[in-house]
């Protein structure tokens, strides 16, 4: 069995009696990848077996309870997640895509302010999410005065994932070849007509993929919301953008912090629901990317 894809004789020439080292190295590499995957599989199996006893309708039909883990559910958290994530999408997708169009199609890269915007977006992508919680607390909740509400959470999460939307959309727009634009411009279309009718439709799959990945990041993100009043047990569904709220990751965090075993089982069950939602979204994103990615 040849170790490498190069012909066997070439390998022998190259390694001069060192194939053992080669095999060891290759095994080491594979083992590293395998370890990361084993970790992933263990995690999934562990949560599933832990949460199994509570994976039933009680979870989405009942409201949270501090006293009784047997009847507690996560309905308000599921509804809260839907509210927060829809508003996040409403806020962050148009802004992110518009910013990406500006940077790719209009911005003159030799200007200092455009370079500042680019560097700034790269930096924002690496700022810890808890710092966004401070931004939400200091500016959005207190200074602007939106309080601890669905809208504060949505804007904060929207700003948090905005760099992801911008970076992904820019890549999708950049992948559209210049000849498409030149053809459109040559036929007399204005620049905006070219973008709106040619470039954007062609880059929709890439933009959609990035948007879904960004929103799935926002669904799982809990750290900034801890700062934004999503911690107490909420026994009602949000009824508007200024309502109090809780979301699934926060509800899970709450249950983990409880000392009773029943709540930990509940947390595992809620984690399974959260992971199913996220895996579904990520699979759709990856499928979109593979299915609709055009080769020009």
């Amino acid at each position, binding site marked *: 069995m040849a170790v490498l894809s190069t012909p066997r004789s070439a390998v022998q*020439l*190259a*390694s001069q009696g060192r194939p053992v*080292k*080669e095999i060891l*190295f*290759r095994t*080491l*590499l594979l083992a*590293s*990848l395998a370890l990361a995957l084993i*970790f*992933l599989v263990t*995690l999934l199996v*562990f*949560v599933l077996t832990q949460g199994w006893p509570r994976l039933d309708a009680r979870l989405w039909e009942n409201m949270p309870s501090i006293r009784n883990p047997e009847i507690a559910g996560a309905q308000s958290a599921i509804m809260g997640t839907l509210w927060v994530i829809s508003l996040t999408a409403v806020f962050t997708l148009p*802004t*992110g895509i*518009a*910013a990406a*169009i*500006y940077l790719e199609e*209009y*911005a*003159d890269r030799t200007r200092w302010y455009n370079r*500042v915007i680019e*560097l*700034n977006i790269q*930096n*924002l992508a*690496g*700022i*810890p*999410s*808890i*710092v966004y*919680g*401070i*931004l939400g607390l*200091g*500016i959005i909740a207190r*200074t602007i005065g939106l309080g601890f509400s669905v809208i504060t959470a949505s804007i904060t999460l929207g700003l948090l994932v*905005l760099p992801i939307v911008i970076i992904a959309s820019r890549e999708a727009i950049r992948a559209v070849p210049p000849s498409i634009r030149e053809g459109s411009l040559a036929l007399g279309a204005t*620049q*905006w007509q070219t973008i709106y009718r040619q470039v954007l439709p062609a880059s929709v799959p890439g933009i959609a993929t990035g948007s879904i*990945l960004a929103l799935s990041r926002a669904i*799982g993100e*809990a*750290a900034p919301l*801890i700062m934004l009043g999503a911690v107490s047990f909420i026994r009602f569904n949000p009824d508007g953008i200024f309502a109090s709220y809780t979301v699934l*990751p926060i509800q*899970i*965090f709450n249950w*983990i*912090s409880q000392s009773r075993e029943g709540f*930990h089982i509940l947390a595992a069950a809620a*984690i399974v629901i959260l*992971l199913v939602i*996220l895996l579904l979204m*990520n699979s759709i994103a990856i499928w979109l990317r593979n299915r609709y990615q055009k080769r020009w």
Partner: protein
Amino acid sequence: MAAGDTATVPGTPQSLARSRPRYGEMAIKAVLMLAALVSIATTVGIVISLLEPTIRFFGEVSAVEFFTSTNWGPLFEPPHYGVLPLVSATLITTAIAIVVAVPLGLASAIYLSEYAKPRVRKFFKPVLEVLAGIPTVVFGFFALSFVTPLLRDVLPFEIEIFNALSAGLVVGFMIIPIVASLSEDAMSSVPNSLREGSFALGASRMVTSLRVVLPAAFSGIVAAVILAISRAAGETLIVYIAGGGQPNFTLDLGMAMQTMAAFIAAAGSGDVPVGTVDYDTIFAVGALLFVMTFAMNYVSARLVRKYREVYE
């Protein structure tokens, strides 16, 4: 910006450009630019929200105590404001995470880029992306209720229920995808001619990977590692759930520790009255964390730009 350059479409020869400005087009450009400026506003907002309370904080507490004292207890009576236990806990959990993530991530990247067949790579890359998509609260739960009990069974010495070791290990696994996928990108963009040259000189695949591809992709890999460090340093929920809430100034990995991010989350979720020193403390620690991660991100972004110029 000059009015003249808005009428000129980039890439359009001057003679073909319209002489009369289109106001609708200009308005659209202005709106799009406004959207791009939201990102600047975010940074400005973060700086403003951190700056004012931080200045107030240092009006009450001496900077010397903040940066040199090893006693952290802002909510105790009398309060202590030495931030070193939080900083050391952050560095320790980050160091553990990096020790886990860099070898495993880098090895995975070398395998995917240099050894794996395209079909194998196409399968493993999304799987790693799945690992990256798991919420940190889930990792935290896993650390507390699976990894810690496992470590307590396996390790020859005692560790507490909340400890830095298990938090750091799990953070490490969380950031493997960052190291792996960014390093893989850096290594795949090394031109094939370098590999072929190395093979032609009689080098084996291992030697080519380690002595040719790795050095050629080095700045990209360093950038990936720096980004991973900054993610690990800012990670909140895993270290909050599994690391515990006690600010211990110690090197004992089996003990509970509180990182900067975990403190911010813990204090921010409590009912700290606005306008008190306690409230400002959250922002002072936040400012320190922001400055540290911002500096790392900046270096990383510069490195990525520099490395991109090498092969185009």
